[in-house]
């Protein structure tokens, strides 16, 4: 069986098994219909937090402390350029001509004039940056996100985006390299660079929330819908809820 089909099978079996978990975790959680596997997800979240405190955060902080800003910007741009390649493909799959065209142009300019993507000439030239992946493509064509999934190490996801993961992974920066050692190195560098970019945000997160797990989950779910709809998701929050306001 091909790796991605094997993965899909694993995801589906896991889904079937986990159906039982939400109900067996007797605690009366204010059940969110988008998160039927909340019990399991909270455990994974707790694990991820410990791993983050122990490993990822210190490494990301060291990355920021040791490397000068222009080096970190170069790394960010390099990863972003490879990301633009996959964005081009997915924008095209979603029939978003402008986004696909702009992303392709970005790749062309940055890979050549930008020295393999290290310099982001395209942004300075005013070409918008888009971000599309297979999960968003599936969402665009009507595939609902499905239950919320907190993945070990990788963090928040949904059933749809997890199923798309193997293919999205194939397009990640590390896979552009042949040698296994280089691949690992690039994976670690990409993860560190991403984590470093989120250091201040995650600190703010701990201060802003009363329950970090649901804050992260709800924020991620909103952001994902926002991305699928490119900044204009259908609103489903009732701002005129008569239950909230005093009757005039």
């Amino acid at each position, binding site marked *: 069986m091909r790796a991605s089909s094997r993965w899909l099978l694993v995801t589906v079996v896991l889904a079937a098994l986990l159906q039982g978990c939400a109900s067996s975790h007797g605690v009366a959680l204010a059940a969110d219909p988008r998160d039927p596997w909340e019990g399991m997800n909270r455990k994974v979240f707790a694990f991820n937090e410990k791993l983050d405190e122990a490993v990822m955060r210190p490494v990301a902080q060291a990355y920021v402390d040791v490397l000068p800003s222009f080096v970190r910007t170069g790394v960010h741009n390099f990863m972003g350029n490879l990301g633009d390649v996959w964005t081009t493909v997915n924008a095209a799959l979603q029939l978003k001509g402008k986004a696909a065209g702009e992303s392709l142009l970005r790749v062309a300019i940055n890979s050549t004039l930008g020295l393999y993507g290290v310099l982001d000439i395209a942004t300075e030239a005013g070409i918008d940056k888009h971000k599309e992946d297979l999960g968003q493509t599936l969402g665009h064509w009507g595939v609902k996100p499905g239950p919320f999934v907190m993945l070990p190490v990788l963090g928040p996801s949904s059933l749809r985006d997890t199923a798309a993961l193997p293919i999205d992974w194939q397009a990640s920066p590390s896979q552009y390299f042949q040698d296994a050692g280089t691949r690992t190195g690039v994976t670690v560098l990409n993860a560190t660079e991403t984590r470093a970019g989120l250091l201040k945000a995650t600190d703010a997160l701990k201060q802003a929330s009363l329950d970090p797990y649901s804050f992260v989950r709800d924020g991620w779910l909103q952001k994902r819908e926002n991305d699928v709809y490119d900044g204009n998701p259908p609103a489903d929050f009732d701002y005129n809820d008569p*239950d909230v306001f005093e009757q005039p």
Partner: protein
Amino acid sequence: MLNSLNLLSRRSLWLALTLSALLAAPLARAQEEAADVFIKRVSTETLDLVKADKSLRNGDTNKIMAMVDNKLMPHVNFRRMTALATGPAWRKATPEQQKRLQDEFKTLLVRTYSGALSQVSDQAVFVKPLRAGQDDKNLVVNTEVRGKGDPIQLDYRLEKTPGEGAGWLIYDLNVLGVWLIENYRTQFTKEVNAGGIDGLINSLAERNKANASANATARKS
């Protein structure tokens, strides 16, 4: 003779004043800003203030609170924000509880987002063209904060308040694709379910106290 001259000039003065008042009135109404113009003005003014004052960027809590109270709160319907974040339990709360809730929520938000001020350097606000067909009670203005690094999506939800202040009030904020009220509704509902409105107020107060001491320690180190 002098008396009648006096009377004449006073009448003309009175007439002149009335005419000018009548002429000025439509002008005053025309000065009502469009929503995107309003947001551009307020966000640019605030950004400029932060750029000019180092103590705001360094996290001086009192100064930041003062700036928020003077510059931002007049443009925000914070009561509505807090009510929507709380949900149906808001209606059952007493006026004192509602006031306390607003105070603690405001402190939480200001303390949390004031950290972002330290990263202000050369950013500028780019206001996107207004989407067509929006209703005056729920109008979204989309902006982007552009500077070094990736642009940050920052959207505002406004209600029209004709005749009051600048004519618009903000009642929800979206940073990077996440609307504040929707995100806090879950947070607040959990606390209300566990301990009622007082439980929520206490949790917020505790969080604020913990944040204040964490920030004080961080600044000392």
